[in-house]
């Protein structure tokens, strides 16, 4: 059966997928782009590796469909599963810090404020940052998630998210300035 997914809400898509596996394709198609990008951003892995993780993520989403509660935005729930799966998938590997050029530009443009940031030197800056702050930067400035959404994704109180975002910005700027000066 072919479904018209465009008119359906996330909750309706979940209900449909629980009745018919084919309808799960709607969820996959809707989220695979953003989730693939997110996996790459937080793990720094290659496109192929990220796709392997993404497959695992969708299988996990499918098996946990009954765990979804409509009180939570579906997108946050899906991001949470993606984050947890990615972390456990790469737990044994060394954390990667490579970031796409385009992401670096966006990141430095959003956080950079008054300083001119050299794009080609972002990796050493990110290398100096705590993993949790780097992840917060990705969610806040690249995925453009609200504090509430980040709270639901990383499962921390909103207050903590606010604090971490500020610290992450400060840590990023301090690390950048320490390495390359004010200009």
């Amino acid at each position, binding site marked *: 059966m072919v479904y018209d997914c465009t008119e359906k809400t996330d909750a309706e898509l979940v209900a449909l997928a629980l009745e018919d596996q084919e309808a799960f394709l709607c969820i*996959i198609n809707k989220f695979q782009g953003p989730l693939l990008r997110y996996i790459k951003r937080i793990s720094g892995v290659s496109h192929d590796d990220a796709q392997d993780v993404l497959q695992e993520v969708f299988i996990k989403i499918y098996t946990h469909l009954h765990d979804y509660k409509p009180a939570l935005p579906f997108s946050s729930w899906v991001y949470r599963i993606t984050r947890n799966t990615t972390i456990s998938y790469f737990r044994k590997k060394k954390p990667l810090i490579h970031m796409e050029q385009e992401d670096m530009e966006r990141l430095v443009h959003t956080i950079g404020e008054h300083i001119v940031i050299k794009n080609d030197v972002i990796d050493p800056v990110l290398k100096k940052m705590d993993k949790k702050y780097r992840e917060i930067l990705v969610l806040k400035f690249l995925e453009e998630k609200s504090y509430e959404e980040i709270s639901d994704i990383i499962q921390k109180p909103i207050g903590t998210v606010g604090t971490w975002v500020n610290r992450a910005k400060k840590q990023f700027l301090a690390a950048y300035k320490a390495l390359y000066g004010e200009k």
Partner: protein
Amino acid sequence: MEKNNDKLGQKVLDTIQQKQVKPLPKVWFLGKESFWWGGVTVSILAAFASMAVFVFILFSQDWDIGSELGRGWIPFILRVFPFFWMLMIILLVYLIYISLRHTSSGYKYKTSMIILLSVIIIAGVGIGLHFLGGGQKTEEFAQRHMPVYGAIHQQRMQLWHQPERGFLAGSIVAIEGKHVCILEDLGKNIWHVQLKDVDKPIILHIGMQVKVRGIVGNEQWFFAESIRPFFPKRIMLNR
């Protein structure tokens, strides 16, 4: 890119079908959630009871004569302070925290808020429960059913098993006339207790547990100077 997307979607669906992957039943998630909420509830109730015993033990110590009883304040406090129940409360607050964190909405609360609120509620309810007699009841239950705690309790009781130093405690097994009672002490010895010179007489009855201060006489006689119930009176409930 669109083609790649379709490929991935189909690959996922094929895996689901080949491996016969099914969504986990709703009851599994409900059970998991109930388990953690059950953990929160049980830990809170146990913490209330532990706090009630903690307060009961603090209230039932002889702070007015502690230094004499324990041969100094520090040995006295080390012997009577309810460390066991304090550790129980700490452990239970930790269990409340862990269980709450595992519930689906537990991540929304700050650690400091969970701990602070738990401690305030446990202290409030526990103190109330003590005044309703819950502390003593729980302590008696623990003495009977927890061998480790029974030993700790005995250590505390031994403070009043020093007749040669003027401290005697036990149960009244008989009352002879107006001024003498027969007491079985903590070592199961029988004493004739002379009550003629006690400063504040109290009404005694058989089976009552008392603490007596006085002087040892000959042949298992004990001349009381003061006598008090072993446990202070509860406000609301009687034994």
